[in-house]
């Protein structure tokens, strides 16, 4: 009994802060998405905003683009992270940890600006191409910024998130996987057998869990597509923001409806991640 009181008191500040600001905010967003804003005389509750948003072409274009950017970023990140972790696992642990932790702590905006200065039509890449005689003028270098394939956005995400996934994979590779691999080696398994039957099954759940986080994050993040993305279509969080900045209060429910849809999708990924993470904990 005393334990319960103690635990509740300890949890109270965090639950209160997040309950008011996060859950309260989401609740307010939900209520407004249903068209209920008594402060401006809108008191009728309906699903009109959702119906409107889901039928709009710009929303569907944005949804497709968002799934594309988050999907490609996650896939590239995962593949590169696994390759990097496999290449570095026998190297000096401390040095690779430090190298990987630089992109993790650097703000997304700094990464976006740096990547833009590398890949723009007058950037380092274009200058290098000119030096090699591949192009004569900036316009001949492919447009990687504000482009329809969102190259700049994806590259920024890959640069930022590869280390996150790689560190997760490295930790498993250097721990359980290394021990099991030694056992397999003594039992006569060759390099491919050791990788496919021993190492891969051990690291796979961690890779999936980390990739789920990367997908959820890139799906709902605002800054990078706002800075480096094209004007149309844009990613969902940018659409929600622009709808929200509209002077017309009648646009507010649509903005909130988009927000709620983003929240629902990312929450589904969060739940999947936590299921995975918990299974990992049990097995480990």
């Amino acid at each position, binding site marked *: 009994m005393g*334990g319960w009181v103690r*635990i509740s*008191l*300890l*949890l109270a*500040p*965090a639950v209160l802060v*997040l309950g008011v*600001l996060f*859950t309260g*905010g*989401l*609740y*307010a*967003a939900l209520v407004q998405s249903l068209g209920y804003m008594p402060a401006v005389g809108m008191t009728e509750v309906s699903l009109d905003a959702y119906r409107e948003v889901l039928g709009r072409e710009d929303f569907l274009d944005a949804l497709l683009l968002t799934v594309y950017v988050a999907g490609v970023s996650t896939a590239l990140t995962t593949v590169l992270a696994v390759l990097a972790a496999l*290449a*570095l696992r*026998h*190297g*000096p*642990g401390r*040095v*690779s940890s430090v*190298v990987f*932790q*630089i*992109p*993790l*702590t*650097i*703000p*997304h*905006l*700094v990464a976006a*600006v*740096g990547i833009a*200065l*590398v890949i723009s039509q007058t950037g*380092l890449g274009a*200058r*290098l191409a*000119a030096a090699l005689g591949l192009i004569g003028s900036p316009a001949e270098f492919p447009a990687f910024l504000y482009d329809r394939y969102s190259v700049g956005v994806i590259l920024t995400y890959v*640069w930022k998130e590869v*280390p*996150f996934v790689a*560190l*997760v994979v490295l930790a498993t590779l250097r721990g359980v996987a290394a021990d099991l691999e030694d056992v397999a080696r003594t039992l006569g398994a060759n390099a491919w057998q050791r990788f496919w039957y021993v190492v891969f099954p051990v690291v796979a759940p961690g890779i999936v869990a980390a990739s789920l986080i990367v997908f959820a*994050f890139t799906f709902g993040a*605002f*800054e990078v597509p*706002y800075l480096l993305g094209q004007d149309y279509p844009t990613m969902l969080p940018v659409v*929600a923001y622009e709808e929200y900045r509209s002077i017309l209060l009648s646009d507010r429910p649509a903005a*909130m409806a988009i*927000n709620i849809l*983003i*929240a629902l999708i*990312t*929450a589904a990924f*969060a*739940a999947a991640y936590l299921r995975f993470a918990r299974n990992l904990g049990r097995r480990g």
Partner: protein
Amino acid sequence: MGKGRAGTGLAVVAALVALPFVPLLLWAFAGEWRFPDLLPSEWSLRGIAYLVEPGGRILGATLTSLVIAGATAMASVAVGLPAGMALGGYEFRLKGLVIFFILLPILVPPLASTMGVHLTFIRLGLADTAFGVFLVHLIPTVPYTAIILTSVFAELTGELEEAARTLGASAWKAFVYITLPQVVPGVAVAALFGFLISWSQYVLTLLIGGGNVVTLPMLLFSAASGNDPVITSALALVFALPAIAALVVALRYLGSGNEREFLGIGKPS
């Protein structure tokens, strides 16, 4: 053979990590850098002069960023510490649910909840104030400090504290003299994290600050949307500075023998 491959791999990874910083460093000190040139033809300190210009906007914005991130770091540790004690030190029913609830703001973008509370903030006079911005910065920071401190308290066995109690120390004394010193490095890491996440926030500050609360990322964003790579790069480097400094400090703090990843938990945003 494995060692050699790892060396090459590390060199490639390090070069890719360093790549975006190359143009930032060159541009920040460039005077003139025309198109096909691989290096600036003239160097200048214009970017640096702009940063420290007396009465300029940079110093004010840096101060605002420091104050908000410092306050957010302290508050999110104060809130996350007891939660970490509960989640790391005790087993109880519904613990998984509580962890899900606390982690959710990391995984669900805080844009939705911030737009949601905006109306209430306007009504309470918190919109367009630094205090209001500080409050919404708690949404992404508290989950991190709580989860980092959960793992810190989960590693405590409680044996030392028990020994102190057996020797006659009060519960409070045992906490202050035995438990607290053991968790100090973890608390420092959590505070660093809180600081860095708040320091990096752009859209939450933009929404709640409404242009009245000018932090560094506001200036960096408008510079990056403009046409002066010298100013943009100088600003970007200043904006990256605390992250680099924090990394250096944190790595020393954790000691050379400690291989635990200082950023191994959750997803920084």
